[in-house]
């Protein structure tokens, strides 16, 4: 199953202040660990909300509101997308995220929806061939 790990913004991230070199190094090492464990699917850091915008829908009307936005705690600063076996495993990985000991922060973990139904009993190789064949059949049937 997949989880999105959401990093919240803080005053520094919103002000465009980069983390310390020490933290950046630790973060790099952590990312490498995620890759080596085969769990990291994607991950990105986000620019401050000053570089973003919101589009509000109200009835037929759309309004564009440019950043920055003030409610810092509700803003995102980055995310990881990880594939793990359980929520507990996701939590365990999140506990290992390097952090600044002087900051209090909260990291959110959310499960991603996916189709976990699988098809019939063919190997992929047979299956593709079968799929092509049946597709031809279907095409002929109109």
């Amino acid at each position, binding site marked *: 199953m997949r989880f999105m790990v959401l990093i919240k913004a803080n005053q520094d991230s919103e002000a465009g202040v980069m983390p310390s070199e020490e933290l950046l190094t630790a973060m790099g090492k952590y990312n490498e660990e995620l890759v080596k464990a085969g769990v990291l699917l994607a991950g990105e850091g986000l620019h401050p909300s000053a570089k973003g915008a919101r589009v509000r829908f109200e009835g037929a009307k759309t309004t564009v509101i440019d950043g920055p936005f003030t409610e810092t705690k509700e803003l995102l600063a980055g995310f990881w997308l990880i594939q793990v076996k359980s929520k507990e495993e996701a939590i365990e990985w999140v506990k290992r995220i390097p952090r600044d000991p002087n900051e209090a922060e909260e990291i959110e973990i959310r499960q991603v929806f996916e189709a976990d139904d699988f098809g019939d009993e063919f190997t*992929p190789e047979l299956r593709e061939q079968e799929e092509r064949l049946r597709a031809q059949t279907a095409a002929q049937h109109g």
Partner: protein
Amino acid sequence: MIDAIWRIESARLIAGLARQVRDVGLAEDLAQDALVAALEQWPESGVPDNPGAWLMAVAKRRAIDQLRRKQRFDRKLVELGHELEIDQQAPAPELSAALEGDIEDDLLRLVFTACHPVLSTEARVALTLRLLGGLKTEEIARAFLVAESTIAQRIVRAKRTLAEARVPFEVPQRPELAERLSSVLGVIYLVFNEGYSATAGDDWMRPALCEEALRLGRVLAGLMPHEPEVHGLVGLMEIQASRSGARVGPSGEPVLLLDQDRARWDQLLIRRGLAALERAEALTVARGEGLGPYATQAAIAACHARARTPEETDWSRIAALYAALSERAPSPVVELNRAVALAMAFGPAAGLELVDVLTAEPSLKTYHLLPSVRGDLLAKLGRYDEAREEFERAASLTRNGRERTLLLDRAAACPGGSAPSPHR
């Protein structure tokens, strides 16, 4: 929670221990002992800051205890015990740092040991999932739809076989490496297929095997970044997995590749798959070799993944890739695939020419897809009487009811001649 830590730490723990005790089976037992200790102590004492190092320290202590208890004081064991004792006194951060350096080599050794050719394929699969995936016996049993005792026995026997055969805990050297690596890749792909072929009603552990195989593949790609076929296999699995959301309809029926809603293909997995394939291709070019079988299959899967609509599919490239695959690993089934691709690219006559050659192939005598493909091509060429015969033959060979109906429908749809015999 301890389960989750086990999942993250167990492979490294077992690998590190196996290097020191030179016995994968014993290493796993020691790791399990450490897990039991964690289960007893952590609920009260809390989880230590570095759970991996904690588990390793406990396992090593057990190793020494065992050595002492058995009083097997031959020189090698004493030396080993001595070494372990020194390690044990080292403070935790240094200990974990010392382990860190070698741990990746150890993991790789563990991969090659678990997939050693002295073991049966079944045993390799079970041992790999157990030692590298951190899966419990019960989970492996559920995934493969066999009794837990069967898997437990398989694992015990596999460990004994490794010990008796004195399989060294090492990464094989060239020229042996290529063959040994192909055994490792074969095990991972087998696990993937087992999950990919699971049906909707199956236990959730079966599809979970796909994720497990993908994870093992990605781990291996990190451990052996210069091996093109590792990236080829990862690419193949990522691209195939990208379609899992689209290959089943709302009532659980399979949806054909060309009928799938391509908007439901997972673009992230496709991108990852294409990137892995590119790495495989670049490494292959650098070596001055041709694409290996996994990378070639990944390239075929990529042709589908790149096509935004079925009509955009580059069938002539697919046909050429099948030809390359056939050359490296000759197989009549691959040839039949090539015939279908040829027909899509250059018209039914081109496909039929190859299919006609394959009708002489003994291994395809009872393979229903051969007459099925042949019937389809004949029908497209307007040779309906022959087509009808082939569809009926295919219907008599398939074991799948839904498919039989489809084939008989097609036989009946062939214009002219007499009505087909209604043996449904």
